[in-house]
Each structure stands twice: as structure tokens, then as C-alpha cells.
């Protein structure tokens, strides 16, 4: 009697595992997403309403941290810098697109060589990017000196030392780093365009630049949209390159929100302030994520 019972139990147990194997496989990721991502985000948001400093303090203080943020000129400067940086990063997309078009147009032998060269900066850490470009921008020993030696005695390339120009230096380094990536995306978009559309344009006698303007670029709208999203995410996440290149300076001229927040957590040891900054950042990202599909929808509606 007991024999059979054991056997049935074993069979039942096996079928439970196998029946629910898929769910079990999914559970860890599910749990992590809920707990570590959403839970953490919610925790941070809650913390932003407290007076926590080095240690969490759960006393509710309303919007005090946010008003501190608003009063902190460094924070508003960081938001401003974020805007400048996001706009400047578009240069990566523009350059990437231009390179993709040139490569597509030329059918040059050694196309692979060029792609390899344009893309290698992606393989390298942003710390290294920041370091090398900081070195290039070195006033006495870098590019500025190089151009001065060539005769342009008043050439000023010391952007890293200038509070108002440092963001441009960071933008330049960032474009160098990511233009190759956007070239790859645009090349993929260009290759997806039907050869016969090009042939039709040759029969119709449409000049090339017109084709790009009126047909090709609109056809690549998905690629561009994806690129915008990725560029914005990249701008929001930018931290490493600031640390390596400028450490936020001079005078906060290159501080970005992510840098400010990490700095608040680690150096200024002010959890609530960091949490408040993070929440604002989250709102910016959320607003962006909501705006993108809406823009996409509006564009699509125009199509039909």
C-alpha cells in the first residue's frame, strides 16, 4: 500500500516542477525587476521626501529637498548642461549619418577598413575617452600648443579650462566615441531601402540630394527615432566621461545631473538630496518615454 503512495507522490512532484518550470525560470528575473528596479525606484522617491543624510531617516519633510535642489545653482546648471549635452550629442547622429551615406555612395574598396576605424572608439571605456581628450585639450602640451606652433599664436583650444566652453569639449569627446555606432545604425537603415526605389529615381532624373531630403531621410524615420531615444538615454546616464575628463568642473561647467546625484550620495553623503535629484531625473526620462510614442503616433497618423 505505502509503496504505491510513494510512487504517486514522486510522479506528482515531478509534474509540479515540470508544469511550473517555465514560471520558475521567469520568477528570478521578475523578482529582480520588481524588487531591485521598481522597489528601489519607489524607495528613492520616498526617500526624497525625508531628511536623510548619511543614514536613512524616515521623517517626512515634504518638498524640502526639492526646494534645496531648486536653490542649488549647481543643480540648475547641471540641468542646463544636460540640455546642451543632449543637443550637442545630436552631432553623433549627424556625423554617423553623413559617414553612412558617404560609405554607401562610394562603394569604395576598403569599406570595411573605414567602418572599423570609425567604430573602434566604442570598444574603449569612457574613462579612457575622457582621459585622452583631456590630454588633447591640455593647453600647454596638447592641441592648443600644436596649432600655436603652426603659427596660429592666439589659438584658444583650452575649452576644458573654461567654464563656458567645457561642455563643448565633452560633447566633442562624446561624438568621437559614439558617431561610429550611429553610423552602423544609419547604414543598416540605408541598406533596407529597396534598390528599385533608387533606380526609379534615376529614371525620373531626381538629383541625389533631393532624394536624400525628400525620400531617404523620411524612410529612415524609425532609425532616427531609435537614435534620438538612445542619444537621450546616453546623455542622461553620462557619468564616466565627466569623471575622467573634467570632474564636473571647472566651476560646475560640466556637471551633469547623474554626476551631481552620485556626488550627493557618495561625497556629500546626503541621501535625501540624491534621491530628490534621482526622482527629478526619473521624471525627465519618464516624460521623454511618454513623449516618444506619442510623437511616433502623430507622425504615423499623418502618413495615413
Amino acid at each position, binding site marked *: 500500500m505505502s509503496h504505491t503512495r510513494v510512487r504517486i507522490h514522486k510522479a506528482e512532484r515531478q509534474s509540479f516542477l515540470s508544469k511550473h518550470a517555465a514560471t520558475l525560470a521567469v520568477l528570478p528575473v521578475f523578482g529582480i525587476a520588481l524588487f531591485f528596479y521598481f522597489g528601489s525606484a519607489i524607495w528613492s522617491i520616498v526617500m526624497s521626501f525625508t531628511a536623510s543624510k548619511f543614514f536613512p531617516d524616515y521623517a517626512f519633510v515634504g518638498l524640502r529637498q526639492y526646494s534645496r535642489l531648486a536653490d542649488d545653482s549647481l543643480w540648475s546648471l547641471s540641468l542646463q548642461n544636460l540640455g546642451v549635452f543632449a543637443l550637442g550629442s545630436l552631432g553623433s547622429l549627424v556625423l554617423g549619418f553623413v559617414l553612412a551615406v558617404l560609405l554607401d555612395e562610394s562603394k569604395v574598396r576598403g569599406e570595411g577598413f573605414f567602418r572599423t576605424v570609425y567604430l573602434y572608439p566604442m570598444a574603449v571605456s569612457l574613462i579612457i575617452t575622457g582621459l585622452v581628450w583631456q590630454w588633447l585639450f591640455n593647453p600647454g602640451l596638447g592641441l592648443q600648443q600644436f596649432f600655436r606652433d603652426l603659427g596660429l599664436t592666439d589659438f584658444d583650444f583650452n575649452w576644458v579650462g573654461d567654464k563656458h566652453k567645457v561642455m563643448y569639449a565633452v560633447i566633442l569627446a562624446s561624438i568621437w566615441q559614439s558617431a561610429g555606432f550611429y553610423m552602423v545604425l544609419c547604414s543598416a537603415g540605408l541598406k533596407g531601402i529597396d534598390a528599385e526605389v533608387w533606380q526609379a529615381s534615376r*529614371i525620373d532624373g531626381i538629383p541625389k540630394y533631393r532624394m536624400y531630403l525628400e525620400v531617404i531621410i523620411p524612410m529612415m524615420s524609425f532609425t532616427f527615432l531609435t537614435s534620438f531615444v538612445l542619444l537621450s538615454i546616453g546623455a542622461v546616464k553620462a557619468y564616466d566621461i565627466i569623471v575622467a575628463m573634467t570632474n564636473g568642473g571647472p566651476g560646475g561647467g560640466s556637471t551633469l545631473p547623474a554626476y551631481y546625484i552620485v556626488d550627493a550620495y557618495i561625497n556629500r553623503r546626503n541621501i535625501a538630496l540624491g534621491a530628490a535629484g534621482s526622482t527629478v531625473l526619473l521624471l525627465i526620462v519618464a516624460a521623454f518615454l511618454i513623449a516618444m510614442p506619442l510623437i511616433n503616433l502623430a507622425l504615423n497618423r499623418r502618413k495615413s
Partner: protein
Amino acid sequence: MAQVAVQHLDKVYQGNTHVLKDLSLEVASGEFLVLLGPSGCGKSTLLNCIAGLLDVEGGRIEIGGRDVTNADPSERGIAMVFQTYALYPTKTVYGNMAFCLRMKRKSREYIDQKVRETAELLQIGDLLHRRPATLSGGQRQRAAIGRALVRDAEVCLFDEPLSNLDAKLRTEMRIEIKRLHKRLKSTFIYVTHDQVEAMTLATRIAVMDGGKFSQISTPEELYDRPANTFVARFIGSPPMNFVEGRLSLRSGVRAVAADGTEFDLSAYGFASRPQEGQEVVLGIRPEHFHRPVEAAPSYATMLNIVEPLGSNVLCYCSLGKTEVVASLNPSDLEGVRADEELRLSIDLAKASLFDRATGLRL
């Protein structure tokens, strides 16, 4: 003066793939010339060369009397309709048709009038503000044709335009294209692999095989008097039956098959003198088989398979050791069933005789 003239055209691809070999062709003004052939025969390549989308390695192309061999596609006075329509996806039908005219700096009024006229002609007037993605296959094809016609070119090229449509639409659009040709009276050069399309649309057909012209002739001529076995096999559905044999000149001209079956060729129009013992291939179309009338000579065949098609019946028979297909009236088969003997007579005056070695018509 021919509208389109191709002289000794040579096209070679990477390395040594000689795709077109010394082709010469003249297309008269107002003709509907179809380039017909199987995949890879070079018909699309020839069309693309005429269009200027491909460079040629040798020869000359003239359109309207001008030498356009090195001219840009847009300067050859041609328009083209593509297999995949190639409409500009982000533009409306109106925009697609107007694009080329805008580049030529025509006035707004002219463009508007031209576009609407052409749209009316193709019955897509109410689709002008839609984008290609929202149109059906047939509508897209009309839009593509519209974009080509709006240019008022003297020569219009078609590259397998109906291949992507389903059977019913294909028939509709075929009639549409024929109607357009009648109305516009311009020169059409049309590429297809479908012999039905070719036969129904063309004023002349150029059958291509391996980069060369196999025969250039009217549809009737190609059907009734194919110049070689390739054309004979390609045109006609069900295809022509072939019987291999030898010529015997003993009592009148006869073709004798290996199994002894004899075919009396005295009514056949020979183009050259028949030779005794010449190895030949006799081609008989399915509809040239009949039930014997009175005392006419007939052959005993074994009826194997019957395929009733409604208006006619396809009979797969064994004529001696050769399998043939005969197309008969349903009433002709009264009293005969499969696996029984079926007596058939053959209208040998309408047959085609080819030299077995060269494949050329005798």
C-alpha cells in the same frame, strides 16, 4: 526609323559572365514588344541596359534616333514600371507622380493637370492622397504605371510588373495595360517570363535564351511556326509534343520514329531540302490531334490518363513508345475510357519539324 534600336549589344559581368551576346533588335514606334524567356536568360538585363541603369561593354543603343549608349537614364526619353512598384513610400500617390515633374520645374498648374489626367486614365483619381502602404497590390501597380506615364515619355519599359499580383488581378491588369497601349500609342517594351502574358499583350515577342534572341516574331508566328525547339517548348500550354525519329525519303517524305511509327510529311512546308536519314524531332501541338474522320489515316494509341478541363479534355496517350498529350472535345471521347485504345489522326501540315542536332526548324 525605329523608335528603339539595339545594335550588337554586349554585357559582361564581374569576371567573364557574358550575359548578353551581340544582341541586335529594332522596335518600331507604337509597338508592344515583349521580351520573353526563362529566369536568367538576360531579358531584365537587356531592359536595364536600354533604360541606362546598367552600363554596356559593347554595342550601341539608340532611342528616337539619338545615340543614348552613354546617356543617363533620365535623359533617354523613357519611363519605367518596376516589378516591386518602387513607389516612394513616404509620399502620396500624387506626390509620387508629381516628383519627377517638379524636378523639371514644371508649373504647379501643369503638374496638377497632368497628374489628375493620368490618374483618371488609370482609375486611381480618388487615391491621389493616399500613401502606398495603404493601397492594395493592384492599386499600387496602377500608381506605379501612373508615375511612369505622367512623364509623357515615348518609350515605356515594363519589368515583370504583374509578377507580384495574384492570378485574377494579373488578368485584369493585363487588359488594363493593353487598353493603355491602344490609347496612348506609345512604344512599350515589356519583360515577362509568362508566355500567356506575352501572347496576349505583344505585337511582337522576342524570345530570349542564354543572352541571345531565339526568335523575334508575332505571337501567331511563334506559335504556329516556332523557329527552334526552345521556342516550341516554351510557348503553348500544354506544351508541344515531341517525337524523335529519322527522315525517310523512299515513298514521299516520312518521319520514322524509333519504334517504327511513321508520319507522313508530304503536306509539311519544308524550308530546306529534307535529307535521307536525317535525325529529326517532330513537334505536334495537343490540339492538332483529332478523332479520325472517315478514311483518314489514324494512329492507334493507348489512352492512359484523362484530365477533363470542362471545355476540353487532355488525354495522355502512348503513341507507340512516345507519351503524348492530346487536347480533344469532351464529345470526342464518347465511348472511350482510360486504358483503352484511342484512335487519333494528326494534322501534320500544322506540325513543326526540327533538326535533332541543331534544334532548328526545317
